[in-house]
């Protein structure tokens, strides 16, 4: 299942790469790409795992870049 997450005020390219790395290695995530320019994270996840993944993704972003605002859409 494809999902989109907005990462507003993402302001460091390396942080984007780190977030991508962290989220990609989570269970239930088949693929993850963070686009620094559009401030979007594109995910391919297992549907059943999605709700459980949300807080993990939030924590990963908080860890790398505390000022980024995460919006699940």
């Amino acid at each position: 299942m494809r999902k989109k997450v907005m990462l507003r005020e993402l302001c460091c390219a390396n942080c984007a790469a780190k977030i991508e790395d962290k989220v990609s290695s989570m269970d239930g995530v088949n693929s993850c790409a963070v686009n620094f320019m559009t401030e979007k994270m594109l995910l391919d996840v297992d549907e059943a795992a999605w709700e459980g993944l949300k807080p993990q993704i939030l924590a990963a972003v908080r860890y790398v870049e505390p000022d980024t605002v995460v919006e699940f859409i």
Partner: protein
Amino acid sequence: MTEKEKHAILLTALSGVLLLAALSMQLAGVSRALCVVMYLAAFAVGGFTVVRSAVKGFAQKNFFTEDTLMLAAAVGAFLIGEYPEAVFVIVFYRVGTHFEHYAVNRSRRSIKAVTEICPETARLVTEKGVEETDPDFVEVGDLIRVLPGDRVPLDGVVAEGSSTLDTSALTGESMPRPIAPGQEILSGCVNGDGALTVRVTKRFEDSTASRILELVESSYARKSRSERFITKFAKYYTPAVMGLALILAVIPPLVIRDAKWSDYIYRALSFLVVSCPCALVISVPLAFFGGMGGAAKKGILIKGGTYMEALADVRRAVFDKTGTLTEGVFAVTRVEPAADATAEQVLQYAAYAESASDHPIARSIREAYGKPVRQALVGEAVEAPGMGLIVFVHDQRVAVGNEKLMQRENVAYTPAPGGTVVYVAVDGAYLGALRISDRPKAGAKALIDGLRAQKIRTAILSGDTESAAAFAGEQLGVDDVYGGLLPADKVAKLEMLMEDGAGSVMYVGDGINDAPVLARADVGVAMGAFGSDAAVEAADVVIMTDEPEKALDAIRLSKRTMTIAKENIVLSIAVKLIILALCAFGVTGMSVAVFGDVGVMVLAVLNSFRALYIGKKEKENEKKDG
């Protein structure tokens, strides 16, 4: 600019002023203690937000952020008594960050301008009148209003009103297109000066604009080799530089006589400043993203950096014939009269003889003749199956058909090889031959010539007969021609062409019956086929309009983008390494090291910006040349 940013810039300026004040105090010979207080004040003003971010990082147990590195360098410099340098680092870092934000925001905006072709609202016609709603809530069959200047939110058919459409967001074509009731209208177009009512035929998510956006956005996930290289490099870069910094701080003072600890610690701290990998990480993907944005603006959708890489490296360009290089419309391309006849006579007899036929070839002959046929002169027609026709025209026995018909009629004809040839004989005497072929598309010849100029070998794979394919190939100057291929043969032929050398193979087709070939090629390009889901699915590159030259544009653009990406790689790595070397030998200090961090990042962002405007520049050059 937001309030927050304004506030930050003000702090930077204030910190800079305090730094200058401290420097002049020092020069004027004011007491050391007072100077230090002044430096501390400048540091506090500028460093406050850096400290806050670093603390936030610490709270998350994340110790190696850009902020902590800068802070470590500045605090270290303070401790060894390099007060001006300590403040310099902070001020320069802040100034650099402002530039960085500015550059990133500008590129973000221009990319948005290219990709944001989905409007956020639709004007739904309801019983109560027109109401604005989310396009997601509009169902197939609903009516929507599209006012002058609106962007069309959903695909549909015009029910009422007429106007002109600006389709440039979809096709890169700036000529407005007229639209009237009954015609199909695609989302993403901008309405001209007439109000329209549109009956929606596709849901928002299936509409053209949404699908293009989806394509452009998801293209980011298909990373190129160079993108993967730089990400990997960045991963090793930071720890490596930090390790070197540690060695630099400890080893030389122990080994070299007279070496001062503070001196080498200072050099090591400069290393920390350069160790941030942001400029590296952004350099390549940004160039690709800019390039794909620029391509989208010209109506070329590229599905990922990896395909740009392949496009830049194309060694063979393979084309489908009908519908791609040729129009798929028959036309008389050559008339070869016998010694004692004229071209006009050949055309006239052929047109009269074929006057009753509805075959595309017959139509093309009548079209070439261009004058009305006087039906009264045309008598009885007898069909010779698989050969042609025998028709009495003005009481003369006219035979029109292929070689077999000429042989049966015992006509002494002159064989004309290649393509589809229609022979004409009157009362058993040979009059001449007409060569009928498919017309090359406008721009097809320019495309083949342009490819040759780029040293790319061209080929045609066609389901049409070998002679027809050969003729088209000859007309356009294509290097290799393979005709009479079934769809499965095409894949086999393509695989054969892919085997004989380095470089990638591009296949361009309309995607109607060659989806497997599109998918098999290193780069599959579907042309003028946004309506065909299968083609868009199978292709790596989608050309929105029916213009063959765009395949060449895609190659040129990719080459330029690759150059920019490589420039960025070399620039960011080289500048960082040079600065590291200079710092290691104590030639330059921390202030230059800051440039190695944020300065390089800004340069990379600005350089990538060029990729977005490649098309524009080329057009200007063309104008100059012309």
